[in-house]
C-alpha cells in the first residue's frame, strides 16, 4: 500500500484533496489493483485448468477463441456469463440468495490483503497476518451455507452442509500445519516469514527440515479440501449433488462462485508459497547467480506450480465419500500434524 500511496502523490493537486479521501484512496486503489490482478490470474487459471485436463485426457481443449490455443476462451465465457439472465428461484430466500456469492468471494478476496507478492508489494503487513488469513479465508463457509440454504433446493442444502462440515474440519489440520512454520520464525507476520527464508532454495522452510516438508504435504492436502477441489469436492460433487450449493445459480452470480473457487485456489497456493516456498525470494542464492527475475513474477510462478499440482491431482483422482473425508481429516491429518508441530517445537528448543 505504501508504494501505491507514493504513486498517488503524482496525481496533480493530491494534497489539496480532503483528508478522508487521501486516507481512503490508497486503500481503494490497492483493492482495485488486487481485484484486477486476481481476475486476470483466475481467467488464466481457468484456461490452464481446461488445458491441463484436456491434455491429461488426450484432448486439446479450447482451440479457437482468441487464436493461439484458445487463450481468450475463458474471457468469452466470462462475458457470456455476465450477459446471462440472473435467475432467482421463486421460493428462494431472495436476500440471502443474492448475497451469498459475494460473501463467498469476499472471503477469498480479503485474505489477499496480507499476502506479500514482492519485497514491497503488499497492501498491509499485519503482525497477525497468518491468523488473519486463516480467519478471513474461512469466511466463505458462511457464504456457501447461505447459498445452500437460500436456494431452497435439497441438493444445494446438501452441498452447503457438506461444505460446512468439510471446511471446518480441514481448517484444523491446515492451521496446525501452518504452526510448524510459525515456530521457527516466531512471528505471525507474512513479511517476516518470507524474510526468514531469504537467500535461496536451501533456506525455504520446505527444505529446512523434514518435519516441515511433511507439514507442507499436510497443508496442501488440507487446503485442497478447504477450496473444495477433487478429491475433496464433495460439496459440489456433480455426480451426486448435481452442482452442490450453486445448483440454482446462473449468470453473474454463478460466475462469482466460479471466480471465488479459483481465487481460493490462488489464496491457498499463495499461502503455501509464502510459508513453505519462500514467497517472492529467489530460487538461486545471490552468491551463485545474479538475481534477474523480479520477486512478484517469481512469486506468481511458484503459485502456478502449486496450482498445477492441484489440477494434476484433480484430473487423476476419484472423489472421497463424506465419512472417508472426515476420517482423513480427524484420524490421519490431525494426528500427523500434531506430531509434526511437537517435533518442530522439540527441534526449535533442543537443536
Amino acid at each position: 500500500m505504501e508504494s501505491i500511496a507514493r504513486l498517488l502523490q503524482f496525481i496533480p493537486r493530491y494534497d489539496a484533496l480532503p483528508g478522508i479521501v487521501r486516507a481512503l484512496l490508497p486503500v481503494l486503489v490497492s483493492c482495485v489493483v488486487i481485484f484486477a490482478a486476481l481476475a486476470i490470474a483466475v481467467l488464466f487459471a481457468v484456461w490452464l485448468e481446461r488445458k491441463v485436463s484436456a491434455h491429461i485426457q488426450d484432448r486439446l481443449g479450447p482451440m479457437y477463441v482468441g487464436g493461439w490455443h484458445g487463450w481468450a476462451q475463458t474471457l468469452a465465457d466470462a462475458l457470456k456469463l455476465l450477459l446471462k439472465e440472473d435467475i432467482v428461484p421463486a421460493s428462494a430466500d431472495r436476500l440471502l440468495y443474492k448475497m451469498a456469492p459475494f460473501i463467498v468471494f469476499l472471503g477469498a478476496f480479503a485474505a489477499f490483503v496480507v499476502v506479500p507478492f514482492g519485497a514491497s508489494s503488499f497492501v498491509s503487513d499485519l503482525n497477525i497476518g497468518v491468523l488473519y488469513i486463516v480467519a478471513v479465508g474461512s469466511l466463505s463457509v458462511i457464504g456457501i451455507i447461505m447459498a445452500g440454504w437460500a436456494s431452497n433446493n435439497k441438493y444445494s442444502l446438501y452441498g452447503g452442509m457438506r461444505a460446512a462440515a468439510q471446511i471446518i474440519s480441514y481448517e484444523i489440520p491446515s492451521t496446525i500445519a501452518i504452526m510448524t512454520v510459525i515456530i521457527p520464525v516466531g512471528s505471525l507476520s507474512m513479511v517476516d516469514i518470507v524474510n526468514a527464508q531469504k537467500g535461496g532454495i536451501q533456506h525455504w522452510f520446505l527444505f529446512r527440515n523434514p518435519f516441515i516438508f511433511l507439514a507442507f504435504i499436510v497443508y496442501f492436502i488440507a487446503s485442497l479440501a478447504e477450496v473444495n477441489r477433487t478429491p475433496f469436492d464433495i460439496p459440489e460433487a456433480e455426480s451426486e449433488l448435481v452442482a452442490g450449493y450453486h445448483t440454482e445459480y446462473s449468470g453473474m452470480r454463478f460466475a462469482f462462485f466460479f471466480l471465488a473457487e479459483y481465487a481460493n485456489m490462488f489464496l491457498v497456493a499463495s499461502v503455501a508459497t509464502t510459508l513453505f516456498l519462500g514467497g517472492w525470494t529467489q530460487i538461486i542464492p545471490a552468491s551463485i547467480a545474479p538475481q534477474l527475475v523480479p520477486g512478484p513474477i517469481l512469486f506468481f510462478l511458484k503459485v502456478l506450480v502449486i496450482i498445477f499440482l492441484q489440477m494434476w491431482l484433480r484430473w487423476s483422482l476419484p472423489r472421497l465419500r463424506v465419512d472417508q473425508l472426515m476420517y482423513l481429516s480427524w484420524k490421519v491429518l490431525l494426528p500427523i500434524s500434531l506430531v509434526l508441530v511437537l517435533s518442530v517445537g522439540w527441534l526449535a528448543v533442543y537443536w
Partner: protein
Amino acid sequence: MLNYFKNLGLGSVTVLKSMGVAWRHLFTRSVTLQYPTEKWTMPERSRARLFNKIEDCIGCGQCVRACPTNCITIKTEKRGKDEPEIFASDGTAIKLRTLTYDIDMALCCYCGLCTFSCPTHCLTMTGEYEYSVYDKDEHIYHFAKDKLATSKAPKEKVDIA
C-alpha cells in the same frame, strides 16, 4: 495400528501411481479432431442421408414395405401405353411414373433396409451427415419433383410430333 499405516502407505502409493499415469498422458498426442475445419473421411459404406436417383426409380414400392418407420411416401401412376419405353440404367423397364417420392429424414432410422430392397439400386445412403435445418419440415426430401417436370415436358413434345 499396523493396518492404519499400511492403508496410509497403500493410499499414498496408489495416488502417486495414478498421478504418474496422468503425467505421462500430458505429453501424449491428443486424438481431438478440430471438427469444422478438419473432417474425417467417411467410409464408403457410411449410412447417412438417403438419396434416390429418381431417373432409375421404377416406383415398385419395395422400399416403402421394407421401411420400419414408414418414412418413405411414394405415389405412382401407370405410364400410358403410347409413351415411349424408358429404362433404368440397369435395364429394368420403368412402367410406373413416380409422382411423389418423399423421404422424411426426420423419421428415418438409418437402418438401410430400403437400399437393400431396391431392385434397381437407385436408392442409396450417402455419407452426407451435415444437414441440420431450422424447420423439421425441411427434412422431407422431395425426390420426384424434377421427374414430374421432365416427364411432362416430353409429353408435350409427343403431342407436337
